[in-house]
């Protein structure tokens, strides 16, 4: 796996939109930071995670979309590929139909930040398919995913989707478990 820039952060610094704020000066290679770049986040306590640069802002700020499933209370963050691989078997055996994407990555990601549990699943999915897929009724019907048999209890759908984007294997329209 190629080396990713490392950025020292305080994992308390999540904003309401779900992004983590950091200083570009806290990166080992600040010039490598650009929107979309995968970074390894670490803190002084020894925690690590992977994330993607969402935005470079004024005054040396960088906003990072943290891939929460890669979080580790230790020096080596799990890679997005490792997390996807670890969960793929569960998903395929469940016969899951994943109606994903179709919206832009940007709008999808932006709407991910909402933590309100009641809307968390419906809203991002709704935005993801807005204007490009017809069966909105079916999408709305998926709001109860976490309770659906076969969906791994520990796996957050939104996080899984972000991981798939990072690994470059996000489904184009829909994915059917075998």
């Amino acid at each position, binding site marked *: 796996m190629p080396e990713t820039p490392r950025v020292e952060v*305080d994992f*308390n*610094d999540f904003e*309401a939109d779900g992004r983590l*704020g950091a200083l570009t000066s806290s990166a080992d290679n600040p010039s490598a930071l650009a929107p979309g770049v995968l970074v390894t986040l670490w803190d*002084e306590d020894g925690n690590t995670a992977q994330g993607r640069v969402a935005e470079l802002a004024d*005054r040396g700020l960088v906003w990072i979309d943290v891939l929460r499933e890669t979080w580790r*209370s230790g020096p080596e963050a799990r890679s997005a590929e490792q997390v996807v691989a670890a969960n793929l078997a569960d998903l395929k055996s469940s016969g899951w139909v994943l109606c994903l994407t179709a919206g832009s990555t940007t709008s999808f990601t932006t709407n991910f930040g909402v933590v309100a549990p009641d809307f968390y699943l419906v809203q991002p999915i709704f935005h993801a398919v807005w204007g490009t897929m017809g069966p909105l009724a079916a999408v709305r019907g998926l709001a109860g995913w976490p309770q659906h048999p076969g969906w791994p209890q520990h796996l957050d759908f939104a996080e899984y989707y972000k991981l798939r984007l990072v690994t470059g294997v996000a489904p184009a329209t829909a994915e059917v478990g075998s």
Partner: protein
Amino acid sequence: VTEHTTEAGVSTHPGGHLSDDAVVIRGGEMKRNTLMLSARKYEAIHPGEHGLTFWSWPDMTAEEIALRVGRRVLMHAQLRKCTVGRIRGMAVSDGRPLDLVRTGQQDGHYTLILPSPPTNEDLDRLGQLFDPPQPNPAVSEVGGHA
């Protein structure tokens, strides 16, 4: 009373202030460099103000607060807790009394405005006010992330 929010997102609504016995928590071990990093990041967003963020709801224990915040936001294996009264009684380098103010759009989210810039001694003193690190129930409840 109409809520007023300053440019820095600081609520001046009286309800935004906590009683002395209210518990506040922060994720992690609160090491000095991490606190300084966070305070500097806050200043980059709110020029001229260094701040640190905490979580609190009136009449809740540290464990209840952590569970309410949840593991998506409070991912640390450990957290530290303190009372608002202890923080208010702390002496800092600029001599100004400290207080926590409700900030941002998230319920239970508070910011402690520090001297600008804070000294290492300010942050060490703040860290000493907090109880030793304890397990974060929001993480241990689901078996942790590691």
